[in-house]
């Protein structure tokens, strides 16, 4: 027998109670892992981008389209290397699966986003085929799309001129990301803006939701933002220019402050867990006061007895926490696979690190008071049942 063996034996003195407590710890950490991953997923929209691009949208809202004719003016600003533009198309695949589809100018997009990798021939095919579409690899893999295939997509926002909501595009390319972070951004599809302009019923010809401004090396992003916005001040199309990171974060915040929501849910979960596990530990110590006194009688110091109780709390939280985080990792991977990479909720190292810290903090929080009680108990009083 070892000291750790003794700790584990004590932990399972009331098997049912320990198992139920363990299950609550496991559930809490599954929730923690998945919610924290969701939080990371939303933040990832901002983290992977560099500081090489600016985004310009209408000052009031990005839903208000801006004229594409602004492109040459923006491109004339010193420090601007290239300007691309993008219009939200939406799109529904088959019955009711929403897709991220944007209408773009292919070659401008290629220049603005060197992080997207696709053979030049496919870029050219995209630019030269009016009904062309390119799909990100994640999306293409998910729906088994192959180059040359006709992709039927309906749009609830933009009907065609004849009133039909059904569109069909020719898949001419599949683009990938240059690294893992960008590969995770390939759950999108792009269509040709020229074709969209002509074919949509709303006569949105020559308008777009936002401009993507690729900066030249060493350009001053802040100064360029101000210059662009100043250029269109007091015009019918006032602009708001910001870094790509701020733009992405702002986009996510349209849904709500995900981070805050996640943190409040987790706070409620862990607060409840503290009460559950804390009560288990307190009860466990209370019902074996005489045994703890015997340990001290045998020569175990006050500190050793405190250590035993803390070790029990730690073992309970560590086992439950690791199982919970592992389950969350497996579930996250399943969700990610099932969604074809659209919901990237796989637990990364950062979530595991926070999870381990949470395990340690929770162990101390639930174990410290019972441990201090065990440390303080006087042998003669405890043996006499006082």
């Amino acid at each position, binding site marked *: 027998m070892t000291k750790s063996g003794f700790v584990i034996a004590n932990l399972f003195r009331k098997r049912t109670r320990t198992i139920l407590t363990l299950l609550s710890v496991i559930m809490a950490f599954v929730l923690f892992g998945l919610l924290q991953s969701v939080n990371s997923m939303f933040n990832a929209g901002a983290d992977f981008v560099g500081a090489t691009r600016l985004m310009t949208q209408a000052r009031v809202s990005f839903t208000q389209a801006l004229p594409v004719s602004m492109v040459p003016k923006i491109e004339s600003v010193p420090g601007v290397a290239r300007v691309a533009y993008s219009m939200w198309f939406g799109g529904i695949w088959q019955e009711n699966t929403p897709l991220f589809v944007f209408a773009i100018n292919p070659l401008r997009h290629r220049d603005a986003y060197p992080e997207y990798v696709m053979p030049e021939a496919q870029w050219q095919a995209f630019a030269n085929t009016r009904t062309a579409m390119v799909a990100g690899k994640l999306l293409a893999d998910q729906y088994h799309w192959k180059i040359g295939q006709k992709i039927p997509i309906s749009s609830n926002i933009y009907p065609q001129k004849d009133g039909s909501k059904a569109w069909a595009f020719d898949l001419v390319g599949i683009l990938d990301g240059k690294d893992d972070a960008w590969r995770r951004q390939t759950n999108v599809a792009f269509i040709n803006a020229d074709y969209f302009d002509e074919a949509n019923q709303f006569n949105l010809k020559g308008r777009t939701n936002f401009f993507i401004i690729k900066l030249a090396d060493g350009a001053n992003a802040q100064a360029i933002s101000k210059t662009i916005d100043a250029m269109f001040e007091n015009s019918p199309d006032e602009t708001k220019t910001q870094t790509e990171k701020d733009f992405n974060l702002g986009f996510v915040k349209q849904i709500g402050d995900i981070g805050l929501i996640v943190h409040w849910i987790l706070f409620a979960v862990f607060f409840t867990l503290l009460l559950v596990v804390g009560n288990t530990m307190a009860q466990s110590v209370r019902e074996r006061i005489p045994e703890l006194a015997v340990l001290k009688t045998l*020569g*175990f*110091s006050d500190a050793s007895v405190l250590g035993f109780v803390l070790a029990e709390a730690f073992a309970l939280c560590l086992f439950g926490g690791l199982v919970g985080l592992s389950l969350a990792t497996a579930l996250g991977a399943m969700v990610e696979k099932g969604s074809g990479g659209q919901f990237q909720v796989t637990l990364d190292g950062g979530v595991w690190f926070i999870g381990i810290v949470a395990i340690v903090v929770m162990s101390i929080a639930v174990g410290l008071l019972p441990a201090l009680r065990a440390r303080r108990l006087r042998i003669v009083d405890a043996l006499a049942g006082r």
Partner: protein
Amino acid sequence: MSESMVQIHNVTKVYERGKQKVEVLHGLTLEIPRGDFVALMGPSGSGKTTLLNLIGGLDQPTAGEVTVAGSRLDQLGSSQLAHWRAHNVGFVFQFYNLMPVLSAEGNVELPLLLTKLSGAQRKKNVAVALEVVGLTDRAKHKPKELSGGQEQRVAIARALVSDPQLLVCDEPTGDLDRTTADEILGLLQVLNREHGKTIVMVTHDPKAAGFARHTLHLEKGQLLEQAA
């Protein structure tokens, strides 16, 4: 039996029960030679267990000196006392006080976790201790699978395993039938006579006291007589 195992000089012990102060021992002086087997008798509240607790280093006197196995226990701090207990004294309680989650051998091994012995050496010592008390075949059994007499034998093995010179027994047969009690007392006698352990035992039972070499009577916190 020349030198003293226990020397108690002018010891007073006062307990505070709420606002009330209760003096349990009043200037008690006592000497127990090494290798002796002493029975402490007296009515309830006479201070037997309090005296035993002081001898075993479980409690500190309010005044006076307590020297056991050459150490002034009244001058030791809490952690020093714990260390002293681990190396100098073994305890046997009325209700055995075994760890229900551990097997017999696990209970006996418990005090050895405080030593630097290897796992193999600990197992060897445990086997010897269980053999001394005649429980080798019950080593793997949990306390609830043992009879009262067997539980007390495990408790005695636990008290012996780190080879202390002093055994402190608080009503060791109080929960046992006569036959089993006599077996346990016989075992204590063997430990005293053949292994040279000094034993101090609290008991209400005159027949149990008959197994000791000497009997001390306490009444109202004072020693009444010393009988051979």
